[in-house]
């Protein structure tokens, strides 16, 4: 059985959990990503000022 995540463990506020790897390439939020791609293909990225060396 999967161990329940302990929210009350204040010793570490971040913890690695490799079981989350299954979500890396899983089709999720597809509508949102498609919409984001549509917007970006239309407007592009902001023009960045070159940093002084």
């Amino acid at each position: 059985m999967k161990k329940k995540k302990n929210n009350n463990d204040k010793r570490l506020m971040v913890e690695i959990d490799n079981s989350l790897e299954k979500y890396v390439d899983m089709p999720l939020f597809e509508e949102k990503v498609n919409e984001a791609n549509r917007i970006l293909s239309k407007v592009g990225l902001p023009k960045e000022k070159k940093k002084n060396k």
Partner: protein
Amino acid sequence: MELPRYKIFYERSRRVFEFNSVGPKGEISKLIRFTKMRVKGVFNLAFGDKKPGTNEIDDEVISNNGDTRKVLATVANAVDMFTREYPSTWIFAVGSTRPRTRLYQMGINKYLHEIVKDFEVYGLIDGEWQKFRSGIMYEAFLVKRK
């Protein structure tokens, strides 16, 4: 600035994060994912509630768990962790609904003076990106570590 936030779980690539929201509706498991977009160097930020017993994520559900600020602070923490791993990437964010986009806007507004110390923040309005300013309703946001 340290805001109250939830403990966060992440996998090696730091593209997926999970945390539990705790409130009057009980414990709600939330998943955050940064998805590579077609434009090189840009990732989409999305998060939603994990449906119990499935691998599905609902990004339109309104949890009403009384912890919006803590949830947003936790998402901001994920952004911080992600951009430390991928410092030159842009993060694109838009709410799944207009009220949710407004909620993100309010979150950015409230802590803008802190956020701009480490991040460039842009808002999309009338088809153009502009430096984020308070009091303007944007359609989407772009964030990048300075």
